[in-house]
């Protein structure tokens, strides 16, 4: 009996260790002066100080965050509106939407970037702008995460009946969707957004192909630092991780605050 109770904790501990270990090692490595055999020979924060002194670092972090958030907002809005239309007006469209949203799983972003670049690079319209191109390519890259997260959440609620109930209380369909259905999708949106953010934030290949030196993100900075000391690179990765963690933490804290406020 006791054994059965302990076993899940052991499994959970091993899983956590497996997930956290690479990250912990990276963080530790960013603080070491050198490595002797299996232990570090000393600790320092000089790589962090160097990094913070680098004028390119904070702007690149900021760019990385902005280029992660905007595609998430665009993709989430598009998917939510598409699902709203399909669920309420044309359920047959759902399959088509699913097919389209899952397509980037087959057509990887890096494959997509090259034809997009050759198609729009010479365009005089706003689509010829590298940052616009990059934004829309990211929108497509994250579609599977966004769609799956939102769709899974929608399956848990009877959207049609909730909207009908709201209609009977005098609400319009879109108002009911925004006020009643969307709040129930927030956890799904949040999870898919975080997945999407980590995918975009961790990318350096697509941004390098499309934007090149016109839009340097933290990942690109990391890529460009490949000839520098590993501790310096580890410091960049650690800062990127902490930033993502803070953004996710802030999002979850806001969600908890809202739930508590609703409960009052």
């Amino acid at each position, binding site marked *: 009996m006791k054994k059965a109770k302990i076993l899940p904790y052991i499994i959970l501990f091993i899983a956590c260790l497996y997930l956290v270990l690479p990250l912990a090692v990276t963080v530790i490595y960013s603080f070491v002066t050198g490595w002797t055999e299996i232990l570090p020979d000393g600790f320092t924060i000089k790589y962090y100080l160097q990094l913070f002194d680098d004028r390119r670092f904070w702007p690149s972090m900021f760019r990385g965050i902005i280029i992660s958030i905007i595609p998430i907002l665009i993709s989430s809005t598009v998917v939510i509106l598409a699902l709203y239309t399909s669920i309420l007006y044309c359920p047959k469209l759902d399959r088509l939407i699913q097919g389209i949203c899952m397509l980037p799983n087959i057509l990887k972003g890096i494959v997509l970037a090259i034809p997009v670049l050759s198609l729009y690079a010479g365009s005089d319209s706003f689509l010829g702008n590298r940052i616009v191109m990059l934004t829309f390519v990211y929108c497509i890259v994250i579609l599977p995460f966004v769609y799956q997260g939102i769709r899974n959440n929608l399956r848990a609620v009877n959207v049609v009946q909730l909207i009908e109930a709201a209609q009977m*209380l005098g609400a319009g369909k879109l108002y009911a969707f925004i006020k009643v259905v969307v709040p*129930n999708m927030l956890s799904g949106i949040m999870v898919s957004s975080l997945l999407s953010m980590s995918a975009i934030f961790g990318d350096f290949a697509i941004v390098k192909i499309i934007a090149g030196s016109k839009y340097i993100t933290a990942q690109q900075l990391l890529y460009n630092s490949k000839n520098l000391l590993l501790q310096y690179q580890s410091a960049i990765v650690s800062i990127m991780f902490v930033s993502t963690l803070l953004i996710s933490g802030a999002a979850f804290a806001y969600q908890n605050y809202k739930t508590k406020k609703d409960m009052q």
Partner: protein
Amino acid sequence: MKYIQFENIHKYFGENHVLKGINLGVEEGELATLLGPSGCGKSTLLRCLAGLETVSEGKIYLDGSDITQTDPRKRNIGMVFQQYSLFPNMNVAKNIAFGLHIQKKSREEIEKKVNDVLEMVGLSDKKTQFPRQLSGGQQQRVALARAIVMEPKVLLLDEPLSAIDALLRKNLQTEIRRIQKELNITTIFVTHDQEEAMVMSDTIHLFNQGNVEQSGKPDEIYSKPRTYFAAHFIGRYNILDSQVFNNISGTAFDADKIAIRPESLIFSEEDKTGENGMISMKAEILSQTIRGNIISYRLKVESPKKDIVELNADCLFETNGKYKTGSNIYINIKPDDVILLN
């Protein structure tokens, strides 16, 4: 014209003809039940009245106005759904206040109305709870409160009790009826449960395959079914070909079918043929089942022409032990209790 009037309502879903020319009226303040098996069109008619479905043909009038094409938001009709449909992201008070906010009522008025209606349904202490924290019965009462707080002209209840366990269902039947009478609100109730319909309704409209099979007061529907379907659906009627019944009973009824309520069969030890016109037949008890205060007997009757018929009979529990399975008895029927179906 009645308070709610359906005139020749037809509804098609693709090629499926779901409502086949419904003509039906509901008086103001009445609780009318649409009763019938699944897929007979009762919920579709309710949804047409709510405006959640469009009618393919026909007119719907509410309080003298044609509302056939009116937006559901402007019909002033409240509805309670089978699965409650409470908004999961809102607590009880916010669920109830949702419609009042849309009507742009003042904060004080909303609070007063929410408190009043919560008191009416007996959930004042659950104001800040979320739907997931409530039982099925409590959720349904919140759904009812949310609908009646809007003071609708008509309240629609679409099988609101079907997802609730038997004991609680009986309490809620009484509760809904009490609130309906207290507010004198015209109500249309949809159910497939004939017992529930009997308990709650002023009038029952029995549906079958998109048509109204029979309308009337509960006792009338129960005691005087006009068609085979009505007799079959209401109660546990014994339905026989009249020729077979005439053979086993020695009578000469002229109808397609004969229906006899199980409680109309009176047991006796001796043949009572002719006593007050009584029809008497010899029967063998095949089985007996105790159903609370009722014992249901399964009987076999044989005619001189060797027609064999099985009948159901219900007796009060006091007969328990008096009649043994396998024994022979006489069953007696008053001629008035023989219902002719054509």
